[in-house]
């Protein structure tokens, strides 16, 4: 199956691209994408702890199953905080 993966803010900078299409095996989950990115850029795993993922504009978990045409995004921490 083919999905679109979007990268924002610090992720966009780290990976040097804002989105891409990924060909994934049947049964793939968000975790499949995270693993693949980690192979390319091992340091990104450090950020996974504070990052969220979305599938089709809804927050998702690593176990969320993917389907053909899904739009997945890595969501770094939003502007958040009481200091802003």
């Amino acid at each position, binding site marked *: 199956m083919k999905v679109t993966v*979007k990268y924002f803010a610090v992720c966009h900078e780290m990976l040097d691209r804002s989105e891409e299409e990924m060909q994934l095996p049947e049964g793939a989950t968000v975790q499949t994408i995270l693993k693949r990115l980690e192979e390319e850029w091992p340091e990104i795993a450090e950020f996974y702890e504070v990052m969220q993922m979305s599938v089709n504009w809804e927050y998702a978990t690593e176990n969320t199953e993917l389907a053909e045409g899904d739009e997945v995004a890595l969501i770094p921490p939003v502007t958040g905080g009481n*200091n802003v």
Partner: protein
Amino acid sequence: MFKITTEVITGAEVREAVEAPDAGAVVLFFGTVRNNTDGRPTKYLEYEAYPPMAEKKMAEIAEEISEKWGIHRVAMIHRVGRLEIGEVSVAVAVASPHRKDGFEACQYAMNRLKQIVPIWKREVWADGEAEWVKPDAVFFEELPERT
């Protein structure tokens, strides 16, 4: 109205979106670009958003307000791109029968906006350095459990 924009925010857009004859109060909040963070001078800010998801999450916040206060007139707009000192980055308008609920709901909307709406801020310092702003510890505690 729930919108990500590259245009200047005047406040009129959100105010007009919530106008209603049964409203006795319209609370209007502006977030503006501050010239420093903890004393370090800021040159300008850059905002980036995931527009379709951001607008969807804003609508969800309005839904939460509707459930909590019975207020059905909420509008939010957030600007993206480069913003200079003093410019408005975000505006929230809440129309309600009475002001107390309106103030509370507006505060709630901003707090939630900073928690769940995918918008990021890059601080460009006066000394030329730049960084994506990290949230404070409170935010991290509120992240949903990862499985």
